């Protein structure tokens, strides 16, 4: 934040210096705009800064974006090019040179600037770094290397959704991009989709399904790390224990059939979690509720319901009866 304030102050000071060069007055509308920019930058009553349209002549204002206060700055209204060209003049004013130094420093500390439709990615990668690191570090040597970038992207997406609350359309578009990038490297995009879904449910978190599976198969069992990698890939490929429900995607009957099919097979999988989960998010929760009604009459085993309104999730866990040998 310090560097953001500094860069904006330098922008205001350079604009004022440019005005003094062009005119004797420091009381006009432009001077007021520059003072306003400096004052708003210093007051720090904003979470982010957005370079966007303001009325002609206005340099800055406070507005909202994604329900957060933002400082709007309109670089079209500021003679940026003149200030920057002025800094290259051998007799340039120190304000111009300071401006370039401040923005260079800002570029460095912020790691770059997002275009508006990509806001939030860098922010979440920084603020949720520990959460993402924990899972990546856990699976770095446990899963096929080509899936690691997908896992990282899936974690960033999950954290963005948790922190920002993405719309279903936004999630769908980002998932498509993850799958598309994975397929451009010669892989099956469906595999990426399954991994993103498994990750969104926390199955790769410390102590959850795939961590427990590693413990039982490798740490306590006789499987090698390499064999676990193959097993993990099969789980991601076949997705044998999770049914992800999206609205208008499947009918109640389709979901019941998929869930009962999977529950009849899941105990045969190596390191089996011994359950099948039906996961619905957002508006899919009503569909999951209908599935529960239907399953009660046809499923031989125990069903647990779990609703997490913070994450807008509704989950049914099906425990198939273990056959008596």
């Amino acid at each position, binding site marked *: *934040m310090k560097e*953001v304030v500094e*860069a904006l102050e330098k922008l205001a000071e350079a604009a004022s210096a440019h005005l003094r060069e062009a005119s004797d007055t420091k009381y006009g509308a432009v001077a007021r705009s520059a003072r306003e920019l400096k004052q708003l930058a210093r007051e720090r009553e*904003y*979470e*982010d*800064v*957005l*370079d*966007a*349209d303001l009325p002609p002549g206005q340099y800055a204002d406070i507005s909202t*974006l994604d329900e957060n206060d*933002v400082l709007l700055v*309109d*670089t*079209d209204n*500021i003679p*940026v*090019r003149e*200030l*920057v*060209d002025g800094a290259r003049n051998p007799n340039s004013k120190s304000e111009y040179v300071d*401006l*370039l130094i401040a*923005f*260079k420093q*800002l*570029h*460095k500390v*912020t*790691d*770059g*600037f*997002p*275009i*508006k*439709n*990509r*806001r*939030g*990615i*860098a*922010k979440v*990668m920084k*603020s949720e770094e520990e959460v993402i*690191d924990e899972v*990546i570090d856990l699976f*770095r040597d446990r899963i096929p*290397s*080509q899936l*690691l*970038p997908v896992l*990282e*992207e899936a974690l960033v*997406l999950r954290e963005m959704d948790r922190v920002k609350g993405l719309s279903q359309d936004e999630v769908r578009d980002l998932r498509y*991009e*993850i799958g*598309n*990038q*994975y397929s451009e490297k010669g892989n099956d995009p469906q595999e990426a989709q399954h991994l993103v879904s498994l990750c969104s449910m926390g199955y790769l978190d410390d102590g959850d399904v795939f961590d427990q599976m590693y413990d039982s198969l490798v740490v306590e069992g006789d499987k090698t790390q390499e064999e676990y990698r193959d097993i993990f890939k099969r789980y991601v490929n076949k997705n044998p224990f999770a049914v992800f429900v999206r609205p208008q995607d499947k009918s109640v009957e389709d979901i019941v059939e998929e869930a009962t099919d999977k529950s009849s097979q899941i105990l045969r999988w190596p390191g089996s979690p011994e359950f099948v989960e039906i996961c619905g998010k957002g508006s899919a929760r009503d569909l999951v509720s209908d599935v529960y009604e239907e399953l009660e009459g046809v499923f031989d085993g125990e069903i647990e319901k779990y609703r997490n309104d913070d994450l807008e999730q509704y989950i049914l866990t099906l425990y198939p009866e273990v056959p008596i040998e």
Partner: protein
Amino acid sequence: MPTEFIISRSKLKSFLPLLGAEVTEEDYIRDIDSQEILTNSDDEPIRTDEIGYLGEGSIEPVEDDFSSIVAHLSDRNIRDEE
């Protein structure tokens, strides 16, 4: 939460000089001092309407794509090319 400095695509032309760059007539990004066209990690120039992120460095334009931006920002060394 860290503060983000977000740029509307329509403001790239007026904003970029603050980072020592400019938009060419063909809509690429050029370093003002060296007059070199700035490229992405594959050494390819990309147009302003294809950019999603202005990466750190001299300015590395990053494609308007979620995976590309995460890959650019990541320092976890988990990608083949790293």
